[in-house]
């Protein structure tokens, strides 16, 4: 069964939000306002576990296929839900703009997203409203910047030591090569 057949057989929307298919996997595209209500409705429908929350920074590849009515933004928060009863997964992708990187937290529904959302905050700088402890998890508390953003260069910053002189303090410095300093 090709992707096209599935899309043709299914309605264009589910739970009042646009849907799309990627390699036979169903994706729901709520707005930020619909996100929490959608996941609550899904939970009532048997999607009892939120297995994963992550994010993607589309800064370097803004072109991507989205269903009609969904406006592409820089960030996307991706949540993976599973229904053990129906043996089915759905993916929820929420567009999050760069100038206001916030999104509602799923914590009131799935306590297990606490660490996952902290990781997204840590590495992408997206904050989650309603999260009980929005702090860094993998990086030190005083780390600057969010490494998984596409404008955060790799391998070009000196290791940050607490209290050491002359450590990188801004994104601009992080992007430059060590030899330039």
């Amino acid at each position: 069964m090709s992707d096209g057949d599935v899309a043709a057989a299914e309605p264009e929307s589910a739970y009042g939000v646009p849907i799309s298919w990627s390699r036979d996997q169903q994706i729901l595209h709520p707005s930020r306002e619909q996100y929490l209500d959608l996941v609550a409705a899904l939970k009532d429908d048997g999607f009892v576990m939120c297995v994963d929350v992550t994010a993607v920074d589309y800064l370097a590849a803004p072109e991507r296929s989205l269903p009609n009515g969904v406006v592409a933004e820089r960030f996307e928060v991706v949540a993976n839900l599973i229904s053990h009863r129906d043996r089915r997964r759905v993916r929820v992708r929420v567009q999050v703009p760069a100038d206001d990187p916030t999104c509602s937290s799923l914590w009131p529904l799935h306590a297990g997203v606490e660490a996952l959302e902290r990781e997204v905050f840590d590495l992408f700088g997206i904050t989650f409203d309603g999260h009980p402890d929005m702090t860094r998890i993998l990086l030190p508390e005083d780390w600057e910047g969010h490494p998984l953003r596409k404008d955060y260069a790799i391998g070009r910053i000196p290791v940050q030591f607490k209290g050491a002189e002359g450590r990188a303090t801004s994104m601009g410095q992080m992007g430059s090569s060590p030899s330039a300093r």
Partner: protein
Amino acid sequence: MTVIEEPEVDHVARLRSGRGVLRMSEVVAAEHGERLADEDDETMLVNMGPQHPSTHGVLRLMLEMRGEQVVRSKPIVGYLHTGMEKTAEDLTYLQGPTNVTRMDYASPFFTELAFSLATEKLLGIEVPERAVWIRMLMSELNRISSHLLFQATNGMDIGAVSVMIYGWRDREDVLRFFEKVTGLRMNHNYIRPGGVAADLPDGWRDDVLHLLDQIPPHLEDLDVLLSGQPIWRNRLQGVGVISTAEALDLGATGPILRSTGYDWDLRRDMPYLAYDQVDFDVVVGTFGDCYDRYAIRLNEIRESIRIVRQILDRMPAGDYKIQDKKVTPPPRARIDESMEALIHHFKIFTEGYKVPEGEVYVAVESPRGELGCYIVSDGSSKPYRMHVRGPSFVNLQCLPHMMVDGLIADTVAVISSVDPIMGEVDR
């Protein structure tokens, strides 16, 4: 049969109340320590790790204690964070498994497998039958070695030090087979998009049969040494209890979820590879305590041995990697005689192959639970974004809920029963 009356506990409400969970930054914790003397505060903060020998690598726990009792706790992770997801964006799909295999170093085949399955789904290719069964063989042997490692470290943590030697001994034998097949004891880079790196070596069947004959009697030894022993049972039974509702809410998977009596295993319920063609049982517990988690892992070794025996009977002949020139480099012999093959080889290893645009999430059942891989491709030869859902990372959140109101001596047993691998937690 008498029904034991259990008090009605709303487990999920308990989770939301944050009871047992310490949410405190290190700065505040330091101040808290100084304040203690002059306040009417009866609790005290204790740091455990990251170099404590029982914390399985570099896990650090901040414990708020009242006497010997744990009031609240916070697992602090990140000491092994090396930005592997960022690194993955700079590696081709061919190089990808080299990177992800270093995440869960106790069961490296599973991360390679999840990455390869996700890439293959994006490419829209099917690997040959033999590759599928070789992948299953290696996965199940890896599950055995990983659970043997758990038995070793769990025994050591509880104080049954001789079990450590037994567990490591058998694990080492399995790793010796891995070395023969892949060239490395760990971090194999063996399962790759398109199949596996090499065919099984001559005599592999005898080696596996030898393992299958050797391990079960040693599991019986463990039963004698541990399962029935009153000291062992007292140390684990009723310790670190978690309910099904809590486990589901916390996203716990694998032996932790199954220990609560919840019957869920991706191999059986959402089969990948050829797990729908082999016969095995999913081991579940009843009480959700440390003992159930120990017993589940012990018996999962036996189930894996059952699966491996079936794989031995049914291993098909044929190619071990897909004969698709886009993905598979030409055989070594062809390179010597054909200029085109040399160019082809060079192109695949320098530029890599392009993967069509799209995004997928693929999950496999690792020894620790659901191991997922989310890949976004922008049509180039490197993943635009690669994320691994590490089961240990999510499972660690159970710790505060398992340890609340317990004794400090039991924290070691609880950490051990969660079986976290910090390489995968921190990535």
